[in-house]
């Protein structure tokens, strides 16, 4: 024989490392012919090779019929290969499954335990409801098999059967329970039952309440740590239903926590206490306080312990505690924050999850600072050139920043691997969420936040966008992080009037940076430009230099690839232009006239190519603005400049008309979903055609480009804002002269560690702004206490003119040692700067009364987010997880008393049966045909004599299978009806369920030695009927990759998904 064995294949693979692909293809070809061999040994060997290759990623679903052939071999070692093939490659929709039923039933009844074990272990991998129905009767007797291995495996397989065919449980449960209660049962079997019950437990805890005494017994026996872990998990689901269990459980659990050497058991005890709600309330006196502190101490120990695994599970536990007992976790803030800086990404992410729930106004700054430092150092590692520059500036300041900075700057010298991009994005997202939480309630210092945002935009990865330039559909679900950051900046600008000026300045800075950074050949990719440009346009009157910003934008626009950004930028350009042009204080001199003409020419030059832009929004705006500006140019040209004698007004179009387009009401943030609450006008009929002769219009539109209709009344209403009135309603800060913008390379002081994550120029600005803000504050003592003339000093003097002599302010001469010490940056770890809480008003989202719109600031949509609706829609699309096993169907089923299951209506049953029969027929035909096709597809001429022989043989085989299939069919029919009949007998099962749960409660009270079970019984019986009523027949939702669907989860997910 020349066939290769599996060993030969593997050896061959090892010897053909260079041309592995080719070798595998050859092997596959060989296997294809070998597997059709009449020799069962060759067939099995070929199958084993195929299974091996399947593991390496070579599909073998085409061979499923041969798998079945090998499965039916009488020899055990061949049968085993066949079953392995089935386990690895059969799916519930594998068609040959129909033919396997009889074989499975036969093997289940075999005499050798090893043979019986094969189908039992294989069934969970391809079980379908109809298969479950047919093998259930053969599987049940195996629960009492003499071999404990068979019993164990049967129990688990029955559980998997129940997942797809819930009716399994009523039949199997009494027997499983019998095994469980049997004290002489093999401990392995008991453990397996506990494992299964634990899986069932969280779905239907009520059914297992009655077994609590037995579980408790098993827990106290302390035979097996594995089982103890599962028992504790089970009890954690039971205690919420039966609070009296807690008192019973506390002593053994406390004992376990104190004594067990097994960390896994210790952790699960703590976890069980948390999940079971045993931690109790603060004012509880039942000793739960003691257990709470015991748990938290143990967890703290695990976090401090050097072992990363313990750290991880401790964080997991903290994550659970924080939901119910945030104060317990808050005490551990120090150790948790340490974990944020762990080398291990897994631990970092868990710590981040936790920190997100712990944020308060006290620790927000320090937490965000830590994260920012991480991002900064990693981005430095990513861009060495940029990094070098910043490290230099850092060394200047590290002298006075003290120990903390030296700690944070250490990794810069070491070789820090750049953080994975998705982690970076995740962290940025979390920073934004933390800061924006509850409408910015934890945020005290908005100026700091704006600086953090500015820094984030620089750090944030933007390369993502480059991969799919204009692929709109791709972009819609990978929202650019930098756009997210920009949106935050915009939100702040809109909502917090007090810092609007700062936000606008930040936006200005970002635009100018984008302009200087990107060379003319590169396209602008940063998604941040869109919201940032919006800010600059909307609050143009607060720009420090509208002319410069306009200039930058004019340079940037031709390089913008994303149409949405482009549309927003066009709007911004006109807004800024209207501000510059609308200033009627400036005399209409000839100089002014030519400047305006030049500016308008520039804008028109920019807009003109965009008139034919494929993106409608851009096209529309470009067309509108070009026409408007052309008109204005004419008007301006016609208006003679004022001379010394004749006073000429500037053209009204320039000073009045254009600005009036943008001066309307101030835009406020609107709560998410508020739009949907706008009542529909009663006379609005959406079905009514827009135009009686729409078809003709559309036909016309095809032939000529219609100018898109301009602003309608609605848009005017929303876009126009009040004329920029005096700045009187602004905070006093804004009326102060602007802070100097130039970079001050001085040794300066700031809050500890800030320089480790903010760029030098941002820091300098911060510094200057702080000085500016505190200048009028008599209680503030500047760092230049010596009165020596510094750069800042000079700047201040020039800003304020000579008449203000700072040195002459008497308070400045106070030079108290302790005060100046206090101002020195503290060497300790970053802690929240003691700062008087500013009264900053954060505008709430606008919403309509009675609406369900959630007021989440992040959900704010600007006027320009034309595609925001589709975006949020795409986000809502839930995705079924891979590998997920659906167990929700079990929820609707009672374990006790098979009759309690209402089941399907008989006529439905019949219809379903008929459908199934049809399906069987169809599939069999298809398979037959497919088999024939395989015959002919082997590359041998169809008329060949040899082939004819073969095909006749095959046909015989198929015919035999046919007979088998028919047999299955008949049997199935019998089964179905026999199962259906008891279901019909008792259509209303509620009474039964109540009885069962009463029994459970009674048993529980027995355990507790209390007679007063009446209250509980009432309670549970009140709950039960509800549960039964809720029962609905499980619907089939469209399937995804995984065969099982989880309807309940889907519904829950779509309702609880936060829109980010």
């Amino acid at each position, binding site marked *: 024989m020349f066939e290769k064995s599996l*060993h030969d294949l593997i*050896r061959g693979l090892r010897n053909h490392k260079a041309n592995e692909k080719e070798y595998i293809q050859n092997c596959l070809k060989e296997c294809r012919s070998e597997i059709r061999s009449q020799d069962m040994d060759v067939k099995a060997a070929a199958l*084993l090779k195929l*299974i091996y290759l*399947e*593991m*390496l*990623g070579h*599909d073998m*679903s085409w061979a499923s019929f041969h798998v079945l052939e090998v499965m039916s071999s009488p020899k*055990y070692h061949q049968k*085993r290969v066949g079953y*392995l093939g089935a386990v*690895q490659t059969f*799916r519930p929709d594998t068609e040959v499954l129909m033919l396997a039923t009889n074989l499975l039933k036969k093997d289940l009844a075999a005499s050798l335990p*090893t043979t019986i074990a094969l189908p039992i*272990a294989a*069934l*969970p*991998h*391809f079980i379908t409801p109809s298969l479950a129905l047919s093998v259930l009767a053969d599987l049940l007797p195996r629960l009492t098999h003499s071999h404990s*291995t068979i019993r*164990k*495996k049967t129990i*688990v*397989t029955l559980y*998997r059967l129940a997942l797809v065919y819930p009716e399994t449980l009523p039949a199997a449960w009494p027997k499983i329970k019998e095994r469980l209660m049997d004290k002489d049962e093999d401990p*392995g079997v008991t*453990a*397996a039952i506990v*494992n299964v019950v634990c*899986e069932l437990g*969280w779905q239907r805890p009520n059914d297992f309440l009655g077994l609590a005494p037995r579980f408790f017994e098993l827990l106290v026996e302390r035979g097996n740590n*594995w089982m103890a872990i599962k028992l504790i998990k089970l009890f954690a689901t039971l205690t919420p239903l039966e609070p009296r269990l807690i008192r019973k459980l506390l002593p053994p659990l406390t004992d376990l926590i104190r004594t067990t050497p097994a*960390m*896994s058991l210790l952790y*699960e005890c703590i976890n069980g206490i948390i999940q079971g709600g045993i931690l109790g309330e603060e004012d509880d006196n039942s000793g739960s306080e003691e257990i709470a502190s015991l748990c938290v101490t143990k967890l703290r120990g695990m976090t401090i312990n050097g*072992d*990363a*695994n313990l750290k*991880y599970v401790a964080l997991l536990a903290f*994550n*659970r505690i924080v939901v119910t007992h945030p104060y317990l976790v808050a005490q551990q803030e120090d150790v948790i924050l340490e974990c944020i800086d762990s*080398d291990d*990404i*897994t*631990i970092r992410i868990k710590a981040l999850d936790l920190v997100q*729930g712990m944020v308060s106004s006290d620790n927000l700054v320090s937490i965000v600072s830590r994260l920012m430092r991480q991002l900064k150092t990693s981005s430095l590692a990513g861009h060495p050139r940029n990094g070098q520059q910043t490290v230099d500036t850092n060394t200047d300041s590290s002298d006075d920043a003290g120990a903390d900075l030296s700690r944070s700057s250490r990794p810069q010298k070491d070789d820090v691997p750049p953080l994975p991009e998705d982690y970076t994005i995740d962290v940025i997202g979390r920073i934004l969420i933390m800061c924006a939480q509850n409408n910015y309630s934890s945020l005290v210092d908005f100026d700091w936040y704006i600086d953090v945002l500015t820094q984030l935009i620089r750090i944030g990865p933007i390369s993502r966008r480059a991969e799919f330039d204009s692929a709109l559909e791709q972009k819609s679900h990978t929202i650019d992080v930098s756009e997210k950051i920009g949106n935050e900046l915009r939100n702040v600008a809109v909502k917090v009037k007090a810092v609007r000026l700062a936000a606008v300045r930040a936006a200005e800075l970002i635009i100018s940076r984008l302009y200087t950074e990107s060379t003319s050949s590169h396209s602008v990719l940063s998604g941040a430009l869109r919201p940032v440009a919006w800010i600059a346009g909307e609050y143009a009157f607060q720009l420090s230099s509208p002319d410069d910003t306009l200039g930058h934008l004019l340079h940037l626009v031709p390089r913008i690839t994303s149409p949405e950004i482009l549309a927003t930028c066009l709007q911004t350009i006109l807004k800024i232009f209207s501000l510059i042009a609308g200033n009627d204080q400036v005399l209409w001199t000839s100089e002014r006239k030519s400047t305006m003409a030049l500016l308008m020419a520039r804008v028109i030059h920019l807009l003109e190519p965009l008139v034919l832009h494929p993106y409608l929004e851009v096209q529309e705006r470009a067309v509108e603005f070009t026409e408007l500006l052309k008109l204005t140019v004419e008007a301006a040209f016609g208006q003679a400049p004022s001379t010394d004698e004749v006073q000429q007004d500037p053209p009204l179009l320039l000073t009045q008309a254009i600005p009036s387009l943008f001066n309307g009401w101030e835009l406020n943030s609107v709560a998410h979903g508020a739009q949907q609450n706008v009542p529909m006008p009663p006379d609005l009929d959406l079905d009514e055609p827009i135009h009686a002769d729409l078809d003709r219009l559309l036909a016309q539109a095809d032939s000529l480009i219609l100018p898109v209709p301009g602003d309608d009344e609605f848009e005017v209403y929303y876009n126009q804002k009040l004329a920029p009135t005096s700045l009187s309603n602004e905070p006093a800060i804004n009326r102060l002269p602007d802070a100097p913008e130039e970079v001050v390379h001085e040794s300066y002081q700031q809050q500890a560690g800030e320089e480790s994550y903010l760029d030098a120029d941002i820091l300098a600005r911060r510094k200057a702004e702080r000085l500016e803000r505190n200048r009028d504050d008599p209680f503030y003592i500047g760092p230049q206490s010596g009165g020596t003339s510094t750069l800042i000093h000079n700047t201040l003097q020039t800003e304020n003119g000579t008449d203000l002599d700072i040195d002459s302010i008497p308070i400045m001469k106070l030079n108290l040692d302790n005060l100046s010490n206090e101002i020195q940056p503290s060497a300790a770890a970053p802690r929240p700067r003691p700062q008087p809480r500013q009264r900053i008003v954060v505008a709430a989202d606008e919403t309509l009364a009675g609406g369900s719109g959630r007021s989440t600031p992040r959900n704010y949509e600007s006027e320009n987010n034309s595609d925001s609706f589709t975006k949020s829609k795409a986000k809502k699309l839930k*995705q079924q*997880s*891979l*590998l*997920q*096993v*659906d*167990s929700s169907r079990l929820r609707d089923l009672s374990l006790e008393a098979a009759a309690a299951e209402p089941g399907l209506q008989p006529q439905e049953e019949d219809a379903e049966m008929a459908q199934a029969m049809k399906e069987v027929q169809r599939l069999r035909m298809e398979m037959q045909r497919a088999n024939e096709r395989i015959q002919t597809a082997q590359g041998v001429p169809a008329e060949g004599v040899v082939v004819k022989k073969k095909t006749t043989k095959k046909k015989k085989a198929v015919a035999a299978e046919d007979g088998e299939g028919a047999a299955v069919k008949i049997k199935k029919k019998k089964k179905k009806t026999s199962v259906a009949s008891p279901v019909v007998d008792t259509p209303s099962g509620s009474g039964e369920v109540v009885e069962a749960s009463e029994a459970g409660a009674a048993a529980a009270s027995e355990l507790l030695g209390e007679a007063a079970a009446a209250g509980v019984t009432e309670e549970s019986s009140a709950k039960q009927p509800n549960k039964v009523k809720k029962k609905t027949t499980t619907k089939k939702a469209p399937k995804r*990759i*995984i065969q099982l669907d989880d309807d309940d*989860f889907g519904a829950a*997910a779509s309702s609880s998904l936060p829109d980010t």
Partner: protein
Amino acid sequence: MINAFLVFNGQGKPRLTKFYTQLDTSIQQRLISEIFTLVSHRPPGSCNFLPLPPLLAASGTSHSSSEPHNDVPSLVTYRHYATLYFIVISTSTESPLALIDLIQVYVEALDKLIENVCELDLIYNFETLHATLGEMIVGGVVIETDGDKIVAGVRAQGKIAKRPVNEGRGVGLGGGLGMGGNFVWHGR
């Protein structure tokens, strides 16, 4: 429950794949390579748990950390022995630390079955790998954690094929697969 049990080597070549819910072969491979990327970039001394690979994270577990859905695979545990990685994907109903032990039990059982086991042994004893796993986990539920019983169960199914003699010993997995390694949780 356990959703998948995987073994692959330091180059990401699968040595054992067992999915307790069936996936298309191509998606299996994608998942393996995603997990391999994650696992091969772990710094020394990090914990034995991986963040969810993108394929699994798609359903979004980060937001539901407070209330995990028990059906969704949410935990990826791994252990590294010499040239091999052992991976367990499971739902939140399994105990993380116990899973680390479970891998240890598996490797110990293999070591008892094939003396001083190394990666090459596992390649050639493909069927034994599956049989051993089958004695421990059925349908995603752990049925046995006692090493001796597992070994007995596998032996009952027939002789363990020996690795061809002429094959080189390959890289020994460091005194077997590094049994009695640094972290033993006494979970059993």
